[in-house]
């Protein structure tokens, strides 16, 4: 599968989705003007990947900030991962700075909503 690589900008995150090396990561800041448009290729990529996934996939969310319109898109991504985890091994790690209780709550919220185990990783 083709690698999806998006460099970070001052308002959009760095995205690296690479099934060959097994890197699935989204990091830095995320408050695009058009969250739906920004996340569209990412959601498409994950849908395609889900057709022929690796035996194990480790997804890492290392976001510093995200806006409410992105929170909806992140939910969509996590929903796809929840689906994938039914027949495959999926490990989701949600990284948060130890002082950032909002980021921790967001991760916990997703985990609860999707009944999906998400590993909370303090940095």
């Amino acid at each position, binding site marked *: 599968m083709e690698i999806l690589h998006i460099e970070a900008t*001052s308002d959009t995150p760095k995205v690296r989705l690479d099934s060959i090396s097994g890197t699935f990561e989204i990091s830095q800041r995320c408050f695009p*003007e058009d969250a739906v448009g920004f996340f569209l290729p990412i959601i498409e990529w994950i849908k395609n990947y889900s057709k022929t996934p690796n035996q194990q996939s480790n997804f890492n969310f290392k976001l510093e900030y995200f806006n*409410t*319109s992105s929170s*909806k898109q992140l939910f969509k991504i996590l929903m796809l991962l929840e689906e994938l985890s039914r027949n495959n091994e999926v490990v989701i790690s949600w990284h948060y700075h130890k002082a*950032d209780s*909002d980021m921790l709550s967001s991760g916990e919220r997703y985990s609860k909503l999707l009944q999906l185990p998400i590993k909370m990783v303090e940095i």
Partner: protein
Amino acid sequence: MNLLENDNFSFIFDLYRQMNLYSLSYIYRGGLSIDLSNKILSLAETNMANHSESSATKKKVYFIMLESLQNITRHQDIKTEENIDNSSFFVIQRLVNDYYITSGNIVENKNIEALNSKLSKVNSLDKDSLKQYYKEILTQGEVSTKGGAGLGLIEMARKSGNKLAYDFKEINKDFSHFYFQIKVSVPDPDPAFQDIDVDRLTWIEGLEERILEKNLNLIYQVDFTQENLISILSMTEGNIGSKDDLALRKKIFNIIVELSQNIYKHADEPNKEKEGKSGIFLIGEKNGEYTLTTGNLILNNKVAALSSSLDRVNKADFDELETLFNKIIMVDEKKGQKGAGLGFIDIKMKSRNSLSYHFSPVDKDYSFFEIQVKVSEKQLN
């Protein structure tokens, strides 16, 4: 529901109107680091590029801003008594024919005479004598202990081609406010900007007095676009709390994003040619409590719906908000929907405070909508 103190919003709406009328792009008050100066400069660069200003004008304005900001950072470390706010002050305005760059800082009264004589000397010279004087000082090397040789002033005067405006306002027997304003004339007048018929320096001095009373640090009034939001964020970031207040900084950052994105997604802009939406953003701080305010125009026929959605958020407790947030997050967005509808809920949950808001009628079509939220470290713990 009217949660804001009346005095406060009449001030904000008034300020919005004045800034619109007098084309004040932004006002900054506070400590001014070199890093922050750079951000102010880059913000001005972006705005000038958006107004497609000629490169000669851009260079002049940039140079004068740089020199003014350096003057402040060089001289702001003087020790004053506790009860004197020694914040610096910086304003940039664009009018029909000119840019006005105004800076302000505290000076010691004992230095006023020397400063005054430097300034009046520069003002007394015409173009050629200024050039001559510049050479003289350069060769004589009459350098002050602070590293300024008066060369900066001469260069600013030469570049602007206009006289320097300045004023001292005594605070007490030891200190005064020093205001300094330079005009850069633009070759092609732009009627899109309005002109004012007041003594600009006096007007700005009065403005600073009012801003000081309200503990405001940054006031920014320009078209709200994603690009300008990024500039506001980087300027605010450099100015919030200490480095260890990470949680507070992130909350403030998040709230600014939500409030600003609300403006450019939902505000109603009478001027259809504008790329962004007009609005005002203010941030103030008192005893560790930050107050974030935005104001923008909306159509009168949207006022009722907006108030009821704000009331709904304000009435709900935090558990109810969590439930509401989760419900919205799970629903797929409608086609063409601009926001997620989560902004107000998120702001209240992050700030742990209710949202104050107010509508002021403007005309038969529009109202001015203000929203204000407070966030402090104390509330978070």
